[in-house]
Each structure stands twice: as C-alpha cells, then as structure tokens.
C-alpha cells in the first residue's frame, strides 16, 4: 500500500503488531524518499513508540530533525489541525516533498464522536493541499465498532475491516458471522497473511471463527494447511467454520482427509475457479 501526498488513511488495530504492516512502510518509505515524518502519541508514551519504530528497523536517532515522535499536547481539534498545518508548511519550506503524519486517535474517545468528526473533516483540508499525508490509528479495544465504520467514510481508500490487501488476496474481518471474509487466490504469496489474520481472529472471537470462502477462486495445499492447522489448534468446543467453500476445494479437503480434522467444519456452495 504505497501512499502519496494528499492521502488520508486509517489503520484499526487490536495489538501493536497490527500497526507494523501499515506504519513501518509508511514511515520508512518517507525517510527513504523526500518526506518528513511526524508521529503523535496519546496513551502511548513517545519512548514506547520510538521502541516500536526501532523494532521495525527504523532508527529515530539516525533521522533526528526529520522524524519526530511526540505526545499530543492538546485535545482541541482546532489547535491540532493548526499545528499540523504549520508543521506541513515548515516541512515544505525546509525542502521536503511532504509531511507524513500518523497519530493515535484514542483522545477522541474522551472528547466524543462530534469532536472526532470535526477533526477528521478539517484535517482532510490539510491533506487536500498536497503538503501532507496521514494515517490515523484507531485502537479497536477502545473505539465502539459503530464509530469505526462511520470513520471509514472520512478516510480515502480505507476500510477499517481490511486486514490485508494484496495483489491476489484480500482479507477482511467480518462481524456477522464473526471471522474473516476472503476474496481472491491463496498460494504461497498470501499464506503468511492468512495465517496471521486467522490467529488474530481466533484471539479476538470467543466462540467459532467463520471464514467466508465464497469468493476464493483458488487455494493451494499450503493455504488449506493453514486453515486445518488453525482449526486443530482451537480449544475443545470451538470450531473453524469454512462457509461457501467451492466444490473443487471441498473435494480436495476430502481427498487429503482434512474433512475429519478436529475443529474444522466445511460447508459447500462457493464459486468455481476461473482466472
């Protein structure tokens, strides 16, 4: 997901590991290119955010003056937007192409939805000027799901339920039934992302985890193995339920004998593979 000036995205996360796929490239591409980076924290101490960046292979000390990590000083959206506008203009004056901004949005839980909407709308104007681009961080543990879906409208190209958006595979969270929606083709290229999304779904949900396979046109043995490994690792009484599985995939699962794997339930009815 390479971003350019003017773009305004969001990332919803349940633990810090989920920030890495979005924020690590966002920050490091800016530093490798001609951008300045501003990272604003709220509940997280700036030193912890610096630690996260280090963990992703980004050394803030090596980019002093260009990569700034600091705590939010205000809860007034007007002040925040003014500060951001000023930082963006200063970056341009210093010769940078744009300001890359990322910030924790947890302050909005204290301030209320209206303040948040006001902020997101005003900040859009800063991005629209082409001087800046941004990724807003939403912690799923503190934001109500309704607020998260309303926020989708305010961010370009964003989808708070999107877990992975690759060339061949898209993984989204689903609320009803709880689990994942898969779309595309699963082979070695997407299998790591699938494993990660499945394990976070297993941690997130309490009961069965559902996977909608209705838009999966191709899955290979390595993909099927990730599904069956996830299922067999589930605690007693929980299942991984595969819904709308394409007929030829049902046949493959039976051939391998995984239709009898503990914890796996396979329901047919999906599409056929066509390129």
């Amino acid at each position: 997901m390479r971003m350019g000036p003017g773009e305004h995205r969001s990332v919803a996360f349940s633990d810090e590991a989920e920030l890495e796929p979005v924020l690590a490239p966002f920050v490091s591409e800016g530093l490798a290119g001609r951008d300045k980076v501003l990272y604003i924290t709220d509940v997280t101490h700036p030193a912890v955010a610096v630690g996260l960046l280090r963990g992703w292979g980004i050394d803030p000390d090596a980019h002093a003056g260009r990569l700034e990590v600091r705590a939010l000083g205000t809860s007034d959206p007007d002040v925040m937007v003014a500060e951001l506008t000023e930082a963006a203009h200063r970056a341009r004056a210093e010769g940078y192409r744009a300001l890359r901004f990322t910030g924790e949005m947890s302050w909005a839980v204290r301030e209320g939805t209206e303040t948040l909407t006001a902020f997101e709308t005003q900040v859009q104007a800063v991005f629209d000027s082409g001087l800046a681009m941004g990724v807003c961080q939403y912690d799923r543990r503190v934001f109500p799901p309704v607020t998260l879906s309303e926020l989708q409208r305010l961010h370009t190209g964003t989808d708070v339920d999107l877990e992975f958006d690759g060339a061949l595979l898209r993984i989204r969270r689903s609320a009803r039934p709880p689990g994942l929606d898969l779309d595309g083709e699963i082979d070695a290229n997407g299998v790591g992302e699938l494993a990660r999304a499945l394990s976070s779904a297993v941690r997130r949900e309490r009961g069965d985890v559902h996977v909608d396979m209705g838009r999966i046109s191709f899955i290979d043995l390595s993909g099927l193995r990730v599904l069956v490994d996830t299922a067999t690792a589930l605690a007693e009484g929980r299942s991984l339920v595969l819904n709308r599985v394409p007929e030829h995939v049902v046949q493959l699962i039976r051939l391998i004998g995984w239709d009898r794997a503990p914890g796996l339930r396979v329901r047919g009815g999906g599409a056929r593979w066509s390129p």
Partner: protein
Amino acid sequence: MEPMIHQACLYGSDREFLDMAVPFVRDGLADGEPVLVTTTSANLELLGEALGGDAARVDHAETAYYGRRTAQRATAFTRYWRRNSRHRRVRILAEPVWQGRSARDVLAWKRMESGLNVLLDDTGIWMICPYDTRSVGAGIAEDALRTHPSVCADGRTARPSGAYADPLDFIGRCDAAPLPAPPPDATSAPIDEINDVRRFVTEAAHRRGLTGEGASLLAVAAHEAARYLGMPLTAAVWAGFGSLVCDLRRPGKAISDPLAGFRPPGPVERAEDGLWLARQVCDHVDVRSDAAGCTIRLHASGPRLQTG
C-alpha cells in the same frame, strides 16, 4: 511393530486361492489383528462363503474401487495402517485388477507393487498379493516375482523369491522409456511466476472444452506440481483421447525420488505433499529427469468423461 512382509501368491484355481487366503485371514483374526481383503468380487464371494461367520470381522473392498489409480491405492494402504497402527501387525490381502488394462496401466501397477516395498517399509503390514495365473499374462506373473521379496502359497509360510529386484532398479526400468514428445498442436509457453501456471493451464483447458471442477482440479494439480518442480518452467497442454495432458518442464532440475508424491500428507508439511495431491487428482502423473532437466506430465480426464 512387526517388520513389513510383502508376498506374492500365484494361484491357478479357486482351491489354491482359498488354501492361501483362508489361513491368512483366520490366523489374523485369531490374533486380534485388523484384516483387509481387497480383491475381485468373485474372490470376495468365495472367501466370504469359506469364512462363514468370521467374514463379518474382515474389512473388505472390491479391488477396482479401492484406489482407482496407483497413487490412490498406495495412499489407501498407508491410511489403513495409520488407522490401525496401535496394532503390531495389520494383514492385507490385495489383488489388483490386471485384466483389460492398457500396457501403460499394467506398467504403472507393476511399478507400484515394487514401490510398496519402500513406501510401506515403516509399517507393520503383512501383505499378500494374489495373482490369478488363469487370467494374468505370463509377463505379469513373472514380474510379481520381481516385485515381491517372497512368495506364499499357504497363507503362513514364506519362500524367498529368487527373482526379487531392488525396487529402485525395477522402477528405474519401468521409467526407462522416454515420454512421447508433445504433439504439434500442443499449446506451450515459458512461465516465470507460479501464479501464471494455473492461469495458463485453466485457459488452455477451457479452450479444449474442460471446464468446471475438472478444470479447477487440473489447475490445482499443475500448480502443486510446479511448486514441487520450482520456477521458471515451460508448460504445455494438449488433448489426448479421453484426456487432457499438461507438461511442466524445468531445465537443470532433477527429481531423484521416483516415489515422491506416493505418501499421503501427515501432520508436518513436506515438499512432496503437493505432488501427492497432483497424483490423487490426475489419472496418471509421469516424472522424468534427464541430463537437461525434469518433466512432470499430468494426465487428467478429458471433457467428455461420463459418470453415469
């Protein structure tokens, strides 16, 4: 666990069949061992009558449907062992269909008979393979002595087979003839990315009338074979009578294990699992390595297959 035993029994009459089969089955049942009988419907009937009430304790399958192809057959045996592996000994009476088979099929089944010595080596299976000399040709009976380390006439005692051949040598001879070259009307293309293999194969299959599940399964087989072979490769697809054939050739590659893909996947992922899947899905899979590279040839059922 007892060591694996693999014996041939050449019989020329119903009496000779029963003289071997009845003691073999009865001894197993008496020792509480799982017993599987997979043979012709005629022999199942004979044996069932001879066993009387004991027949109910015998696992059985009509042989034509117990693993339609060799890779499925080998897998069925492995799974029967895995399901019963708490026993030290598992008995299998296994008589393949030989009559009416094409030369290529006969060769594939001989090849498997030899391969079982390697594939089932780490099991406690005692397998007797009856050969009906009234119907199988002389060549098949002779090769039974090359593919089984010992022969058994009474279901109890063994006599070593002097003609027994090392399985890898025997299989090497089965694979000696080069694969026929693809026909001039084959569609062929060099492919760099693995995800283009399934696209190429599916499109070529569609153009030859194979659609739906058949095309999807061939695409999976080709993808898995390509994953085993490695990229880049050259793919070719053509139609044979009743089949669709897909060649994958990788220069500079060699596959040394002639039994790769005959062992079913277990809990731990192995490289050959994908080739196993290809062998399950296809009617035939040929693997040939030469000085210049390696070819995997997949044969799938053609679009006009009727399934009743």
